[in-house]
């Protein structure tokens, strides 16, 4: 029997990219109506569940903790994670967190991970490859730096064995395998697995799972370290890009290929 794992999966409640998304307010932050569990985080959750199941699952003492930082609505991302199979949920929420940039977010998340590891240590922090709203991909690396842990980012396959994690990474010019000792921060790509959907049993079971709410005070972070006050960057202006409009549309009458080239020549693109 392999050793059990305590895994924290970072899940984010993000505006659904299927709809128009907007920035508003003084800090030019994202409107969070119509929000969902970030699609890219489902791969991290699936990877965590597979690692736990290979070791006997929750019954054997494996933990998959869905941690989300965000306003009240973020609890929905946690609930969805519990329905999919996370064993417990943790909601880090505090008014002072609003407007946190990656540096402030990673500070708060690092403190939350330390808090969750206070009794028994956390073995793995799993994340998606990016959030689908901020899209900076900064948080996993900054979290690793703050926790003093190795980062294994953009993993397209993942194995954990004997206190070590190994992963495959695919870049444009090369593929590589990497190895690190646990604990580690691992981000996974959308190539790593096929995330499962919550089934009826999972939805019922989720109702009995607990969600712990943590405030900044609970994790020992001062409100000046996060939010706008604790952020190291400031968005000073935001402008909506005018929507693209349709140009010339033609139906092929046997010479559309030639017309395409005429268009490129007129645009000086040949």
């Amino acid at each position: 029997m392999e050793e059990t794992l305590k895994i924290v999966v970072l899940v984010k409640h993000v505006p659904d990219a299927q709809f128009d998304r907007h920035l508003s307010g003084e800090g030019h932050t994202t409107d969070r109506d119509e929000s969902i569990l970030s699609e890219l985080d489902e791969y991290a959750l699936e990877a965590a569940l597979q690692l736990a199941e290979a070791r006997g699952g929750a019954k054997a003492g494996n933990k998959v903790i869905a941690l989300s930082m965000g306003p009240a609505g973020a609890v929905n991302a946690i609930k969805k994670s519990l329905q999919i199979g996370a064993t417990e949920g943790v909601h880090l929420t505090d008014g002072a967190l609003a407007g946190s940039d990656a540096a402030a977010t990673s500070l708060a998340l690092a403190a939350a991970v330390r808090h969750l590891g206070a009794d028994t240590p956390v073995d793995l922090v799993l994340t998606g490859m990016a959030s689908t709203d901020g899209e900076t991909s900064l948080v996993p690396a900054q979290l690793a730096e703050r926790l003093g842990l190795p980062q294994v980012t953009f993993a397209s396959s993942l194995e954990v064995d004997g206190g070590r994690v190994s992963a495959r990474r695919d870049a444009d010019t090369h593929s590589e395998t990497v190895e690190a000792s646990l604990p580690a921060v691992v981000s996974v790509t959308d190539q790593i697995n096929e995330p499962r959907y919550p089934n009826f049993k999972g939805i019922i079971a989720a109702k009995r799972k607990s969600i712990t709410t943590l405030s900044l005070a609970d994790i020992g972070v001062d409100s000046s370290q996060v939010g706008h006050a604790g952020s190291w960057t400031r968005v000073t202006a935001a402008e909506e890009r005018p929507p693209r409009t349709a140009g010339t549309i033609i139906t092929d009458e046997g010479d559309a290929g030639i017309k395409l080239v005429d268009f490129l020549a007129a645009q000086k693109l040949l």
Partner: protein
Amino acid sequence: MANVLVFIDNPGQALKKSSLELLTIARSLGETAVAVNGELSDDVAGTLGAYGAATVFRPSAADLDDYLVAPKAAFLAAVADKSGATTVLLENSPEGKEIAARLGIRLSAGVITDVVAVDADGTAHKSVLAGSYTTTAKATTAVTVLSVKANTVDPEPATAPGAAETLTVDVPADAAAAAARITSREQKVASGRPDLTDARIVVAGGRGLDGDFGPVEELADALGAAVGASRAATDAGWINHDAQVGQTGKTVSPQLYISAGISGAIQQKAGMQTAKVIVAVNKDAESPVFEIADFGIIGDLFQVLPQATEEIKKRKG
């Protein structure tokens, strides 16, 4: 004048265009120092001088490439301290962003990614929410770390080129202590086409290709373009995942994007709607891609693309 530090990772025998762009931006912001990891050839050292670099810093260790990111960030932090840099510029690759991320924490410096322009006062311009907004952002810290996208300025050598002085900086002894080790690496076979992210022209194919990327590849080669794909095409295994353009793939901003057999759902649109000119070919007149195309052709791509390819070859002689 402010001190600007540019990080160039493994320049090889000649500097990439994106590196020359970083050096050009750096010069507009202040006095340039460069941190180079890996071999530094005489040619590259000469180019650095020609682009106005006064100092080139190299790491005391040669094994930074054996680890993921952390030791490079530690080296760069040491150089930033030594050079007194107030701005650090890196390329906007996944690794460049991660080095920037860790460097930011080490220097208590604000990090801004995906930058497309930098004002003289350090204000950075970028586009967010899949190109639907443009924003300006500024670091509030003493040092600013920026990862800058390729193809944002034209590279230009300094008017008064000099020769850069080379200094070695100690990589902190504990730099690799908490880093993942790279245990093996295989190079992929080069396609000979331009890099998708930086290409001036992209020809992309989707579900409508029905497994045959031939017409897209031939048109791309006639135009000297990179080949892209929708998620439907990469998920079907018709082309490598590296080629995926969209929300979960690459974001491209070429001069010209030719979309063939792609419906243009929001997932795909997110990756290409900042292209300067969009051309779409699709047999379904209702495809959403026609709402954003500058030139749209309702027709069979297996007729239209080869005809265009032949015509381009003819005109280019």
